[in-house]
């Protein structure tokens, strides 16, 4: 098994990388989105929270398209900040496809056709605010 992830940054961001605003594009009032990243440094931890990390680079191109009307989600600051519902958002279900490739010393991979969220996965798209923005 290989588990390519963004690791934990000194800022505390977990599996989350600053890819810059040019890499992420939301359009059509958040009905569509595109994420394109090349040579993003990640780690291969071989399993969830695995004890050994191997540096790797990944490229991915991901597209989302909403398939429903957005629905209001979350409970805002009526619940504790650590509660999974401590946000407010307008979120629609979506479909998404992805082309992904990666490399580390001695190992490379690329997707066979585009990976998809339908019928066996899931995707969503929308807006949200949390923390001080509630």
């Amino acid at each position: 098994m290989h588990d390519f992830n963004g690791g934990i940054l000194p800022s505390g961001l977990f599996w989350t990388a600053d890819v810059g605003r040019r890499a992420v594009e939301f359009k059509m009032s958040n009905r569509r989105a595109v994420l394109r990243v090349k040579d993003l440094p990640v780690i291969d931890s071989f399993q969830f929270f695995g004890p050994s990390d191997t540096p790797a680079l990944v490229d991915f191109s991901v597209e989302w398209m909403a398939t429903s009307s957005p629905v209001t989600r979350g409970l805002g600051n009526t619940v504790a900040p650590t509660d999974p519902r401590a946000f407010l958002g307008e979120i629609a279900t979506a479909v998404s496809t992805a082309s992904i490739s990666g490399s580390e010393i001695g190992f490379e991979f690329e997707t066979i056709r585009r990976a998809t969220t339908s019928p066996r996965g899931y995707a969503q798209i929308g807006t949200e605010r949390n923390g001080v923005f509630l």
Partner: protein
Amino acid sequence: MAPGVVIHVFGPGDPAVTLPFTGITLGGFDVEPSTITDFNGSTAVAYHVGRVRASDGRTYNLETDIRAFEGEFVADGAVRRGGFALI
């Protein structure tokens, strides 16, 4: 994981969906997609399923949790704007 450390990562999605390879069941529609505290913006989440071809000659099952975020966030006490990806 050190005691007291809080991870701001949840698994939003249709609770009727169980991902095929990890066996993880998604957490529900009222579950926060962002992994950034003090965030205001657009979010997209995708759990893809597919196959990859590797340099060792094998094919592997692929399952993802990829998210995109674009919007305002707070860093060092100031509101900034940026783009992020969870992988």
